């Protein structure tokens, strides 16, 4: 009986460990292969947008970006180009503005609308109102890309990181990280580079 109790305690301890370890991991954001959460966020056209709205999509390029970050601005045209290339192939861009708009008024909803109109965004530009979505993804900077693949088990994270390897000059890019990842995903091949790093503007909590 005592042995049984001890075994039970040990198992409980292991279980506890397993769950705490797991939750620490979750708090730090997604890893490759994790299931990404859906959301319902307000778009610059005042409609609400969720991933589940996209019946036909094969995946999504969820990009955390904003108006005020020089890196995000440098990538705006390339984000538009990604949407133009991959929306018809079933992988649309969904842009989310994660910053605290009190701390960064240049990123508030009105400013987002203006920027989307000026640049002619062809994709939803959503406000992470309440800032509850970006911490779940683990986004830390703008722009920060998450490629999701729609599967029977939900939207699975396939790539996390930068758009390409040269923020300064699109013409000097040698590796198109995001395009390579989407192309491989659509071809059913293994994605070679699944995470990349870049200097970006820290998301303002």
């Amino acid at each position: 009986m005592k042995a049984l109790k001890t075994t039970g305690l040990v198992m409980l301890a292991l279980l506890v460990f397993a769950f705490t370890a797991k939750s620490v991991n979750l708090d730090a954001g997604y890893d490759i292969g994790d299931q990404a959460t859906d959301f319902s966020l307000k778009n610059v056209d005042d409609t609400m947008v969720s991933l589940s709205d996209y019946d036909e999509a094969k995946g999504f390029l969820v990009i955390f970006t904003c108006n005020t970050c020089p890196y995000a601005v440098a990538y705006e045209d390339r984000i538009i180009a990604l949407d133009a290339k991959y929306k018809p192939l079933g992988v649309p861009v969904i842009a989310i503005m994660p910053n605290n708009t009190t701390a960064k008024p240049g990123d508030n909803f009105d400013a987002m609308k203006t920027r989307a109109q000026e640049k002619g965004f062809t994709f939803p530009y959503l406000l992470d109102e309440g800032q509850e979505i970006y911490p779940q993804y683990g986004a830390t900077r703008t722009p920060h890309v998450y490629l999701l693949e729609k599967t029977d088990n939900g939207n699975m994270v396939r790539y996390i990181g930068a758009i390409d390897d040269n923020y300064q000059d699109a013409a000097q890019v040698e590796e198109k990280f995001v395009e390579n990842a989407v192309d491989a995903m659509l071809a059913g091949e293994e994605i070679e580079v699944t995470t990349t790093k870049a200097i970006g503007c820290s998301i303002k909590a």
Partner: protein
Amino acid sequence: MTIVIFKDLKMRIMRYLYVFCLSALVGFTACTTKQKNDNAQPAAEYADAEKSEPSADVKFPVYDFDGLEPLLNKDDNKTYIINFWATWCKPCIEEMPSFEKTYAEQQANGVELVLVSLDMPTMWKSRLEPFVEKKGLKGKVVILDDPKMNDWIPKVDENWGGGIPATLIYNKDKRVFFEHGFTYDELNEELNKFL
């Protein structure tokens, strides 16, 4: 049952985190209001800056990562504080006075301060130079101009996600890397482990 308990625990931890962030935020907004105008149109500001050519006669040394690397690996008897920053990075600007104050106090103890600017080429003349001059920065300002970030970020520290401010403190015996901002007290606490 266990799952429920730990979900609850996780929620509680999250709540603490929110409260912590919120209080941090209150602290920040006090400083940020001053720069409100700066904030309102940085996108437009950048668009303007984009038109001007990056000037070759910028006052500070411009390195690619290979050029910068020796500064991160000196083996003399000094302690080096290497701070990665940019003029467009608000928390970087906020922590700058703590670094400058510490440098002024500890220079005699063999401490060197290197301020590695990640400002874009279009900002070197228009923003970086005026900022350094206005603040009278005493740390050694160098510019890191190397767009192959995914290659060099892990060479600074393999755990660096790419956020700034980020700071490396090292001497010939040891090194520590931090991907967060510092207060004066926090910086000195870490620095004192080297002195």
